[in-house]
């Protein structure tokens, strides 16, 4: 029995990226992940840095946030300047974690996922793109992006 699991485990890891899910189905409600991934709350200031910096989230590759101090913001994805007017924190979290859960064809990369990936570069095989802390920093930052800040 133990041997059987071992063999299967070996095969799974040999084909690359079929690791266990980082977010359990029980954490997902509709198109949202309502509960934070970490105990400690996210931080807006850090979230802004994760959003812009090339060696972190680098979300500006595809998204515009008006007024953000970052050159050449991309427009492959929607403008996120007032994203919190459309989406709550749980919805934003799911979209960053693994939008493919609810939109299988989407181009938005899955930032907190290790399973069912293919031909992943050796240097990136062991961890998701962002840590749980970085995701929470982003969720906190983006959740404050409303047209009227006092709402």
């Amino acid at each position: 029995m133990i041997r059987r699991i071992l063999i299967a485990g070996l095969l799974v890891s040999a084909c690359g990226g079929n690791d266990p899910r980082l977010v359990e189905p029980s954490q997902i409600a509709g198109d949202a992940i309502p509960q934070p991934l970490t105990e400690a709350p996210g931080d807006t200031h850090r979230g802004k840095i994760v959003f812009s910096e090339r060696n972190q989230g680098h979300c500006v590759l595809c998204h515009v946030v008006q007024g953000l101090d970052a050159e050449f913001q991309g427009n492959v994805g929607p403008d996120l300047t007032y994203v919190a007017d459309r989406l709550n924190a749980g919805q934003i979290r799911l979209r960053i974690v693994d939008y493919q859960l609810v939109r299988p064809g989407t181009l938005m990369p899955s930032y907190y996922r290790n399973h069912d990936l293919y031909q992943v570069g050796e240097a990136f095989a062991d961890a998701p793109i962002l840590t749980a802390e970085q995701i929470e920093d982003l969720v906190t930052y983006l959740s404050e992006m409303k047209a009227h800040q006092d709402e």
Partner: protein
Amino acid sequence: MIRASLLLCVFAISACQEAAQPSQQSALTIEEIRSGYTFLTAETQALQDDPFANPGLLWVDRGAELFQSTIAGEASCASCHEEGLHGVAATYPAVDESSGVLLNLEGRINQCRTQHQSLDALAYESEELLALTAYIFNQSHGLPANVDISGPAEAAYQRGYDYFQTRRGQFNLSCQHCHTENWGKQLRGDTISQGHGNGFPAYRLEWQSLGSLQRRLRDCDTGVRAEPLPFGDPRYIDVELYLAARSQGLALESPAVRR
């Protein structure tokens, strides 16, 4: 016990192939097909168009010299190909009749070196191979790609298509996500083109050099944090064939200049 573990194994393997299934999404229509050239700034276009300034032409000139020259007492390329090789590059990749293997132009040049000249194959991105490839591509400048995807090439074309449509890398994106569904949009400072290979070998300002189409493919795979395939990998030659067929009628521009 054995049966159960076998079953599990089969499940594990098929689960992993599941993740690599190509999607059957949108395609370019003939009317919208555009060269990467049309997405460049006016300055970069001017550089490509200027026969005195286009840096890629240095490799073409060097290739012309190599083509004429006798190396280690072997017959020169020109001695067997007296008429030159006009229009030939437009038909590549092509299946080699004797071996049944799909060859890109680099592979064909190397086959002539090893089989007809008793010389070693040249490495990808070596100055000599780039020069010869650019020289021969330049003799198809302005012609549309004219590859054969029937008969023995059909399976290779299908594999190339599958590679194009399959998500890969940590970003889990396929070529078609960027080059079919989102061309014209901005990826930071880059305007995403339709991903045609018609300009290659091309001089990329970022490389400060001429480079092969496979070098560009490796850059795109690396960009989605996928493990790039080794130079010359048959899977990339399949993609080259698919790209040539996908570019339907687009004129070859090598040596193009790209950002």
